[in-house]
């Protein structure tokens, strides 16, 4: 066996037993037979210069962690991929960016000192401040809102709902016009330079807001802050909380009341970033169950076993992605639910896109919007 490349840890390759559980768990492998996590690891073990960096497959991984979740050797395959993507980029191998790379370009532009209009929506949606205890990290929703208008989607609705809920709870969070993309996509596209620049901006912005707690509705932002910012920047001077955790904890105390839902059952889709990568499964369920008269049914694959929404980091969207999405939608339909609730804007966009070609009446809705819609008008006004 040759020397393994320096940048790879033991945990990343050496412990592999070639059991194949990873490939067996991988949603992409099921659609694209030439994609095999097991073989990718083996290839690197056998021949570190064997050209994995130049392969197209390096970009096909969803980093959904379905493999690592089950790996008996606890190999962190997403981490393996992330590392190699950085190398691939150096070798001139780039991913097929979806939507003509608009979102990557937007992230790139945010590494500069530029004028943004990130908070315009918030001025119409509620009350917020420049400084305060809570910082609501909105993420890329304003850009998604423009990009996916052609699909009749308004991802910003989610942020508006969050602000409404927080306001009702008596919280006037900081929403900053200077916020930047969290860098999640850059990180997973192997573009560490951009990731670093963005992260530095964000840390500076949050610091100047004096916030003690940063709230995320977006699982990607959450996991990036929670897991990857400390990895590169050390311990953060503020608490990082996902809104589902926060709400599950605080909502009942805030005295908000919700309307009973129609009798139709609902189901919940676990985003990989919130679930397998960050370990939050129960908070959203708890929230949904706390609503009166709610029939939450589970899909066949849920929590740790949940199926990914099919694409990540706005790249390599393909017919396989669609097949995965259709499979997930089918699973949701089979529960008898009429509403599919997601806690991730990208899951929502991807599933809604796939649904464009499907004939189901299933409604895909974002968790926070769902909550807001069910708020009683008579409910206590936290403000």
């Amino acid at each position, binding site marked *: 066996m040759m020397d393994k490349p320096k940048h790879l840890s033991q945990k990343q390759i050496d412990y592999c037993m070639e059991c194949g559980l990873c490939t067996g768990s991988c949603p992409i492998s099921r659609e694209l037979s030439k994609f095999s996590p097991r073989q990718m690891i083996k290839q690197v073990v056998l021949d570190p210069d064997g050209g994995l960096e130049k392969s197209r497959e390096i970009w096909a991984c969803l980093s959904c962690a379905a493999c690592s979740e089950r790996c008996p050797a606890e190999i962190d395959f997403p981490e393996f991929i992330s590392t190699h993507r950085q190398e691939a980029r150096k070798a001139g191998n780039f991913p097929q960016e979806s939507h003509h790379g608009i979102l990557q370009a937007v992230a790139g532009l945010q590494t500069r000192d530029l004028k943004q209009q990130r908070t315009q929506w918030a001025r119409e949606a509620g009350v917020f401040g420049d400084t305060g205890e809570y910082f609501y990290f909105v993420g890329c929703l304003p850009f998604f809102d423009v990009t996916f208008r052609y699909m009749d989607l308004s991802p910003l609705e989610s942020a508006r709902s969050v602000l409404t809920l927080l306001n009702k709870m008596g919280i006037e969070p900081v929403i900053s016009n200077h916020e930047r993309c969290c860098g999640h996509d850059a990180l997973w596209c192997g573009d560490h330079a951009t990731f670093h620049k963005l992260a530095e901006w964000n840390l500076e912005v949050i610091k100047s807001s004096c916030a003690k707690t940063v709230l995320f509705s977006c699982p990607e932002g959450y996991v990036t802050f929670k897991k990857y910012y400390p990895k590169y920047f050390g311990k953060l001077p503020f608490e990082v909380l996902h809104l589902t955790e926060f709400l599950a904890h605080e909502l009942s105390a805030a005295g908000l009341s919700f309307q009973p839902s129609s009798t139709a059952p609902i189901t919940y889709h676990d985003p990989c970033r919130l679930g397998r990568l960050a370990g939050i499964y129960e908070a959203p369920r708890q929230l949904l169950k706390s609503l009166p008269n709610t029939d939450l049914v589970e899909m066949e694959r849920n929590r740790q076993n949940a199926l990914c929404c099919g694409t990540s980091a706005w790249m390599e969207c*393909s017919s396989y992605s669609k097949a995965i999405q259709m499979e997930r939608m089918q699973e949701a339909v089979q529960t008898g639910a009429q509403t599919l609730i997601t806690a991730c804007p990208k899951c929502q966009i991807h599933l809604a896109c796939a649904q464009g070609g499907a004939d189901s009446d299933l409604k895909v809705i974002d968790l926070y919007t769902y909550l807001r819609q069910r708020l009683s008008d008579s409910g206590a006004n936290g403000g």
Partner: protein
Amino acid sequence: MTQTHSTPQSEKTGSITIIGSGIAGIQTALDIANSGFHVDLIDEKANVGGVMAQLDKTFPTNDCSSCMLGPKLAKLANHPNIDILAYTDVLGLEGEPGRFQLTVKKKARAVDPKRCVACNICAEKCPQRVSDPFNLNLNQRKAIYIPYPQAVPLVYTIDKEHCTYFTKGKCRVCEKVCKNKAVIFDQEDEIITLDTGALILAGGFEPFDARLKAEYGYGQWPNVITSLEYERMLSAAGPYQGHIQRLSDGQIPRRIAWVQCVGSRDSQIGNDYCSAVCCMSATKQAMITKEHDGEIDTSIFFIDMRAHGKGFDRFYERSKSENGVRYVRSLISRVIPNPEDDTLSISYVAPGHDPQEETVDLVVLSVGLCANTSSVKLAERLGVSLNEYGFCESDPLDIVATAKPGIYVCGAAQSPKDIPDAVQQGSSAAAQATALLADVRGSNVTAPTIHEERNIRGEEPSIGVFVCHCGINIAGVVDVEAVAGYAGNLPDVKYATDCMFACATDQLQEIKQAIKDHALNRVVVASCTPRTHEPLFRNTLREAGLNPYLFELANIREQDAWVHQAEPQIATHKAKELVRMSVSRARLLEPLFETSYTVVPEALVIGGGLAGLSAAHAFAEQGYKATLVERTAELGGNARTLYYTEDGAQPARYLQDLIQKVENQPLITVCRETQVVSITGSCGDFTATLSQKGQSQTISHGVVVVATGGQEHMPVEYLYGQHPGIITQKEFEKLLVSAPDKARQLKRIAMIQCVGSREPENLYCSRVCCTAAVKNSLKLKTIQPDAQISVLYRDIRTFGFRESHYSEARRQGVRFYRYALEQKPHVTHQDGELGVSVFDAHLQATVQLQADLVVLSAAIRPRPESRELAEAVRLPLDEDGFFMEAHPKLRPLDFAAPGYYLCGLAQGPKFASESIAQAGGAVSRAVTVLSQKEIVAEGMVSRVDAELCRACGECEKACCFEAINVKQGAAGRKQAIVTEALCTGCGVCNVACPTGAASLAHFKDEQINRMIENHSQLNSED
């Protein structure tokens, strides 16, 4: 072939000569050359293009004229089967139809066309300034010249009348500076004889000499100009770069007046015809003026507004309502200059107003179209008869046929006409000439040479860069050696050099050699614009065994050296950057392969009226099978009741002959009581499903001609249907023919025009009704000279030579009353007596008429079946329900979808003769497809990556050409599939695709991204 030809097949010549190279001649040449014949295109002028090249914009779309003409010129210049004999005079004709010998004189340009690379250095250095006829002498050019930069052939000519060497024996500067030794002073005229099967006259027109109407002071007062001069003035490429100005002082005019009918509709000077285009042309000019500068007052002084073409009335109304162009129905009598400021005073009386005097800054005389003097001489020499105005006389129904067999005519040489009519007729003349020679099709064409292509798959890019000096054009500003040196250090560049003229034959040879010597697999030339030179270099690659798409041009002349002449450093820097951008793109270029389909050499003609029958018959004459589908049980359509025309032809009789010929023609299958249910497939290979009395059948065919016709509108006003004495114009025509005795009893006739036409809900002119009213009035006058005929009209639109019939009707005492749309006539009916009261817009008084018969000139409407067909076959209709052509100006016979053509009333109202010509033209267009064994789709088409495609359908929604559809793919799942034959390579699907699955070959995202990344030095560190 059923036709019997007098000459044995072997003796016929598969070549056709076209004399005159305006838009009509160009269209004719392209059609003929694309259907298996050789073409000699002759023009007495040094370059082709005709008047259209001088126009700024064209109505009613206001498209840029030279932008539309440019691609046609490029096709012409590069066509392997067209010889352009510009600067050539016709001397004589011998022989007979099918095998003429035409003697021509190629005049000496004093420039060798093979050596001239059009670098312009000779003209730059030429000391002799000459007023420039292309710009109507508004500015000057040199004595060695090309008329305009896009000229074809792109070869300079010495104007011997002005050249100081030819006039005084001195100078020779051009010869000295020409680096390619192209100037040859003692070059001699060359007399050659061309073997040609048929001749087409397309000599166009000559603008009326406005000096002959001296009352307008043209040539006397500086700010009185002609419409053609104004056209050059508007043109961005014209002498004033598109700035509207007074000639006296260059100031922007605040008020401009157009005077219509200068040299038209004028018996005084012997031009008793309407020039057919000036009303719309002035409207267009006024609109464009308003667009240039909304502050300029524009007034058009006219007699009758002749907006008789498709879309013209809407254009006219738009100019009034949206652009604020003022129209005054009053013909200016004279123009008076004010000596203090060179303004011009005009006085006029508008209907119902007192005399007005106005001062304007510019008067534009809308000069008429006159017979081309040299065409007249030529026609006389060829024995082709001319009408009294000097235009070529042709058959009243078969308007492209002259009295001399084997000689055809098209365009304004036949009568004044606008561009679409000229283009249609050009195609129609092409159809007739090629039908004559159908049995020698393909006998005289050049087969393209096939070069073996090197497979470069798997090779790393290996790029050669050639930086052109273009004499001093580039090298005079840009440090060419430095650019070449810079290029040599760019990634993947294996060879970089500079050269004097990259496009010169010897240099092309060197490029080929370099490809071999350095194993190059990509080539970048930094020289001039790809719009003119890309085909040449691509061909060089092909000859060197490389795929032609592995070539990239960096434009460092037009877009660098010439626009930064005073800043050599900046220009050199920019040249480097342009080269870097091109090289970066070249690294990603891929070989492209053109796909081909076998053509089914049969036609489907939908509609059995005059147009459809003519089309089917023309296909058979060309030797192709045709299926003629008619909805009803009887062939003939409207023409069955078109008994006579104003010029004595008898369409109904012609029709009966035609039906007979069609029925006896073995190549034609006639399907009566049949409908087209659907058409699938693409150009060259369609399958149509027909339904005949409930029975369904499918047929294969390569092209579709839509000729579903139109119908007379059933009036809903003027008491139509409530009194037997109120009939339509068609019914009246029938009465005149079938019951002349009854007609003789008619003493008082009132005709009402525009019934159902030119109203807000039907905002189009039915084109034929004015002539029909005139024709039927004259007919009645021959039956009953005492008949008192009153025609109530809004504008009389007897365009072209039809004007003389209108004049004749007036002379014979037919009374014409103009009414306004707001004050339509009233038909009354009391005690069996019919009365018509009309507010005479001229006198501003109500006139009460009694009538024995009221004749309503009812509009032409599209047939309702057209809509059904449009929906079944997915063909576009215009706002009025007529089929919409691909482009109203230059592609009037084509649908946007390849393989579909249209003709007859289905396209819009027209005369029988025009329908026949259009049918011929549509066939000519279709034969360009049928005559090919296979259709080669352009390599630059969209491709879909099946893995990336998620079948979302965004591409299908975006495509204007229905070239991409989501279907079951080879992988067993749905995906977008491109019909390459339909793909135009616009790339819209590429943009619409969210995943990047659809990508336009040669303009892929990454290819463009790479140029973006390299557009400025800033990014090289990235």
